């Protein structure tokens, strides 16, 4: 009898427990949780790699962010919050950061995460033998010795990063960088486990082999079909992680992505170009447009051997003024993009877009001014006729814009344009070598600070495709690095660009996507789109 009643008590408890599970609520928001805690997200192509030291693209980064955890994470607004590091102290000269690591952090095999794992990962990323396409990031963080290590002139163990003890990491920089803590949220800085990599070699990123320290572990990887990550039971904050499984489905075609979303095969997919207004009407709760830290612009070749007409700043300014950005963002793109007259994205943290003159004019005023400038330079209807070629990488959206801009130039200025599309790899070569007059370009932030955009136009930047070279500009950017408040310098730099016009900024990106209404906790306000599945959950729906 006693045995039976214990048994009954136990089953009653179990019943209560399952009952509680079915009606589980989110620990913070109190939302009722769905039983099915999975989330699926569309990506464009098989990701090149899940090795944090080798990653160079957004989609690989999105998966790695679930698998690994760096010193700091970002919250839904993009602010830094503790990750493996609880906090840090900074030396008075601003050159030495000392991070205090969380003692309870664990790898998925149960081993503790230590400062040495970061030291190993950072050295490995910079080591020429790793052949990482992102090794320059360690240099970008101005870690002492990084440039020499990347160039193969110094051994990786000379890098300015050291484990004081298991839970204290010390990083030495060559110059103070105010936004350094932001930079250690980046995947290149994630820790990796030396013994794991040495055991499996290049195959360590395969499911079954990979040991990671994030909220999830890699469970499936089918090239060009899907990658699946599941909950990491050893993650230090596993108790507060709600989603059990996240799938990354590879769907190359965005229209097919939408179809599959409508069919309920996945939770999140991109809005195909031009369909935003219609979808917004049909699915008002599930279509989102959020700022995305990228700027779309036309680069004008200003090398000394370029077209003489383009070397005349009045011609460049006329071309700039005659582009009707409102038509582009409201009628052609129509998905939450913003007109751009300057380079750095307005959603960049701590950055204010300077008001350059063109931004406050009406389009009529701009057109009149453009015609005057062109006439002054001796071109246009009464002067010498102009024909420019716009090159862009093969893509319908780029073509649409080029056609529209060509049309605006023709109507307002009488300037003829020819269009040439090139497939991506060829296009990159052409642009880099300067075999163009006007080239489509875009830049996305590597980190959430305006210098990631403004550095583009410094003389020694490899992506300065117009080849704008202005020592004054370079000096401004150099000064901004150590300035307590860099905003006035950024304002000057933007004004300089708006005056010299090596580029014609066109619009600031927005990311528009469909997200199933049951998914909560997505980082809408994180302008770098750094979302963490551990902060998301699926609510029960009636």
């Amino acid at each position: 009898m006693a045995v039976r009643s214990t048994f009954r008590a136990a089953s009653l408890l179990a019943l209560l427990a399952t009952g509680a599970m079915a009606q589980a609520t989110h620990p913070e928001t109190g939302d009722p949780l769905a039983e099915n805690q999975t989330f699926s997200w569309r990506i464009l192509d098989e990701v090149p790699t899940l090795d944090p030291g080798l990653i160079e693209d957004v989609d690989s980064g999105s998966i790695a962010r679930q698998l690994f955890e760096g010193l700091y994470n970002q919250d839904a607004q993009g602010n830094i919050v503790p990750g493996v590091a609880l906090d840090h102290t900074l030396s008075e000269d601003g050159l030495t950061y000392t991070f205090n690591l969380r003692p309870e952090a664990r790898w998925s095999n149960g081993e503790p995460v230590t400062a040495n794992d970061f030291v190993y990962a950072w050295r490995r990323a910079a080591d020429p033998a790793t052949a990482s396409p992102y090794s320059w990031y360690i240099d970008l963080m101005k870690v002492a010795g990084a440039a020499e290590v990347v160039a193969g002139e110094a051994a990786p163990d000379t890098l300015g990063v050291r484990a004081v003890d298991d839970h204290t990491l010390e990083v030495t920089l060559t110059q103070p960088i105010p936004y350094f803590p932001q930079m250690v949220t980046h995947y290149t800085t994630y820790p990796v486990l030396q013994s794991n990599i040495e055991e499996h070699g290049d195959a360590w990123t395969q499911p079954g082999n990979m040991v990671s320290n994030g909220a999830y572990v890699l469970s499936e990887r089918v090239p060009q079909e899907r990658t699946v990550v599941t909950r990491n039971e050893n993650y230090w904050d596993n108790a507060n992680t709600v989603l059990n499984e996240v799938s990354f489905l590879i769907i190359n075609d965005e229209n097919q992505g939408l179809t599959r979303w409508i069919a309920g095969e996945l939770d999140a997919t991109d809005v195909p170009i031009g369909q935003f207004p219609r979808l917004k009407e049909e699915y008002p709760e599930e279509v989102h447009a959020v700022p995305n830290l990228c700027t779309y612009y036309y680069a004008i070749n200003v090398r000394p051997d370029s077209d003489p007409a383009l070397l005349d700043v009045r011609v460049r300014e006329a071309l700039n003024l005659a582009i009707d950005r409102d038509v582009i963002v409201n009628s052609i793109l129509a998905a939450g993009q913003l007109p751009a007259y300057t380079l750095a994205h307005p959603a960049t943290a701590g950055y204010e877009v300077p008001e350059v003159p063109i931004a406050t004019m009406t389009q009529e005023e701009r057109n009149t001014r453009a015609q005057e400038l062109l006439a002054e330079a001796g071109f246009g209807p009464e002067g010498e006729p102009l024909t420019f070629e716009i090159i862009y990488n093969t893509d319908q959206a780029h073509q649409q814009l080029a056609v529209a801009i060509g049309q605006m130039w023709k109507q307002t200025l009488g300037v003829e344009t020819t269009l040439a599309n090139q497939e991506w790899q060829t296009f990159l070569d052409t642009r880099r070598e300067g075999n163009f007059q006007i080239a489509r370009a875009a830049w996305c932030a590597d980190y959430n600070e305006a210098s990631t955009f403004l550095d583009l136009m410094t003389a020694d930047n490899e992506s300065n495709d117009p080849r704008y070279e202005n020592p004054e500009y370079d000096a401004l950017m150099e000064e901004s690095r150590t300035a307590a408040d860099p905003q006035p310098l950024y304002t000057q730099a933007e004004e300089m660009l708006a005056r010299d016009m090596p580029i014609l900024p066109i619009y600031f990106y927005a990311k528009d996507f469909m997200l199933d209404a049951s998914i909560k906790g997505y980082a809408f306000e994180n302008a770098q789109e750094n979302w963490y599945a551990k902060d998301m959950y699926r609510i029960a729906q009636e």
Partner: protein
Amino acid sequence: MLTFILRRLLVAIPTILILIVISFVLMFAAPGGPFNAERPLPPDVMANIEARYGLDQPYAVQIFNYVKNIVLHFDFGPSFKYRDQTVSGLIAQGFPVTLTYGTWAFAVAVVFGVALGVVAAVRQNTWVDYLATGSAIGASVLPNFVLGPLLVLVFTLWLGWLPAGGWYGGQWQYVILPVAALATSYLAAIARIMRSSMLEVMNSGFIRTARAKGLPMRRIILRHALKPAILPVLSYLGPAFVAMITGSVVVDVFFSTGGIGQYFVNAALNRDYSVIMGVTILVGVLTIVFNLLVDILYAWIDPKIRY
């Protein structure tokens, strides 16, 4: 016969080698490289990466090493774009996928294509013929990048019967739409070849004799006409089978099957040199093997052919 097969296999070796050399030359003649990116790599970093993949060697050395690794170790090297994957791994994962839906598509195309062609020929100039010929022409002008979305619209969005994409290990519901999208145009081509060949045979002397003897129509078609009429179809089937089992870029990309069909285009666009070579060699070898098989089948079916 045996010497014929041996001779053909021996010729295959230099053919494959020439294929490799031509592909290499074309590949390196294209501008750009696998490691070009929006943010150009600093020269030191680029040098490190090129050294890792042996791209700093002279072309002749690269080709030699490449062939050597295949012959000695059957190693096609790592993918340049998908750094976590080897070429052999990508093919080992993707080829079974295309082999599955390709073989099904082949079976569907042959069975229905031949049947449609025969019926159309036998009932020439009746409504059956018009219907068969009409739908065959319709199917052949309907490219699979149009057919794919149409199928999804009907079977996923309207009827809700089948998933719009994914493979999930080749469960049947994920296989049907890729098979339908791939089979249709081949089916149409087979039907047209079969119909005209069948018409020719049906008008030849020995069929007239058979009819004069009063043999039943069913017997004439199955026993006497089908075998000679199928020969032109057969020569079409060799290359078609290879094309189908190596998949289609449209089917793979549209239905996210994970098959190797997409690499023919993607690898070239990505300048993923090792993957380009891997799939080229795979198709080269399969083409040689299946053309040989077709020739052997020919000899077996058609007594006029001797080696």
